[in-house]
Each structure stands twice: as C-alpha cells, then as structure tokens.
C-alpha cells in the first residue's frame, strides 16, 4: 500500500521562528495532498492542500511545497505561535483518489 512518512517525529521551535515540517510519500499516482493539524483530543483540522500540477501554495502564515521528482512535501509555518503546537499530518490520495493515506505525524512544540 501507500506509504506516507515524516522525516522528523518531533520538532521544537521558539515562538516567532519559522517551522518546517517534512513529509515523504511513495505513490507517484497521488495527485492531491492535504496537510492537517491535530490538537490533543480533537479531529484533524484542514490546513492547506496542493495539487500535483503545482509546486507551491500559500495560505495564511503557511506554505506548502511539493517536489514530485523526489516525492516530498513540506509545510512551512511563518512566525510560529504557541497555538501552532500540535501534531501535523500530511495525507495523499493514492491510486484511486477516494481515500487518503496518512503518515504517523510530526509533533510540533512551540517554546514561548
């Protein structure tokens, strides 16, 4: 099956610094990707998505970069805030596009 993995399981950053969370995916047929934020005891929250015909997409304080050549995604968070502390997942839509495959997540801790 598909394999979506994250390079760093934990990440600690100082408040105000920028954060970069990385993700590798294995299915070259995936053409749609979503980054989710999950706080303790809550469901995943949609942050930003990107299609395979793009290599960069920006949202409010967040940017997603897609490198299809090496099957790599990254999520950049600008001016990280304490409220950004959570587990971040990337998800890909795989062969059929009807389901999403998630990695194990990266835990981001923001130090005040």
């Amino acid at each position: 099956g598909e394999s979506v993995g994250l390079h760093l399981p934990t990440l600690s950053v100082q408040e105000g610094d920028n954060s970069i969370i990385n993700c590798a995916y294995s299915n070259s047929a995936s053409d749609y990707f979503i980054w989710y934020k999950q706080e303790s005891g809550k469901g995943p929250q949609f942050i930003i998505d990107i299609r395979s015909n793009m290599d960069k997409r920006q949202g409010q304080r967040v940017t997603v970069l897609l490198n299809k050549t090496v099957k790599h995604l990254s999520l950049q968070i600008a001016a990280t805030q304490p409220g950004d502390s959570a587990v971040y997942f990337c998800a890909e839509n795989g062969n059929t596009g009807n389901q999403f495959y998630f990695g194990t997540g990266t835990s981001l801790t923001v130090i005040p």
Partner: protein
Amino acid sequence: DAGVTQSPTHLIKTRGQQVTLRCSPKSGHDTVSWYQQALGQGPQFIFQYYEEEERQRGNFPDRFSGHQFPNYSSELNVNALLLGDSALYLCASTLAGVKKVDEQFFGPGTRLTVL
C-alpha cells in the same frame, strides 16, 4: 454553516459487544469516509460512502460495516469488539467529484475504549 459532527464523544464497551457510531457531514457535503486512529498513529481509512453505497474500503475486516442515509449522514458499526479496536474513530466529509474526493474535513471523533 455546521461542520462535521459525531456522536457519541466517548464510549466504553467490553469485548464481544457491538457498537454504532454516528456522523453528520458538513453542510453541502455528500460523501462520508470513516477512519480509525490508534494512539500515536495517523488515521487509517476504513471505508467511504457515497450515494448510500460503500464506494471504497480499506484493509479492515467485515466486522466493520457502515451505512449512509438519504440525508448523507452515516453510521459505523463494529461487531464482536476486540481490545485492539480501541481507538479514535473519525468521520470525514467531502463533496464528491466524478471519482476523486477533495477538501476532506474531519469531525472531532468518537473515542472508543474496549475493555
């Protein structure tokens, strides 16, 4: 605009029992997917319902079954519960395209504990 809602929030069952979890999709969405999230893991796809039929299924046994109603809400049923079924069960909704889902939004989840 109501988001995805799930009930109950928490549930405790014993081995061998059966459980039913419920989900109402985000307003305007017609496709519901169910995921199981074990502690410390990413969500794992169970199945997806569209037009009241199961459209896609992940690698879960037949003990896991579901249903979608005409109003697009959905139920997840698990029979003969095992200790390993303890997890956070997430419902996600989307507006279906021809084949591929888009902008999938999750509910808060139901925490199931099997004793």
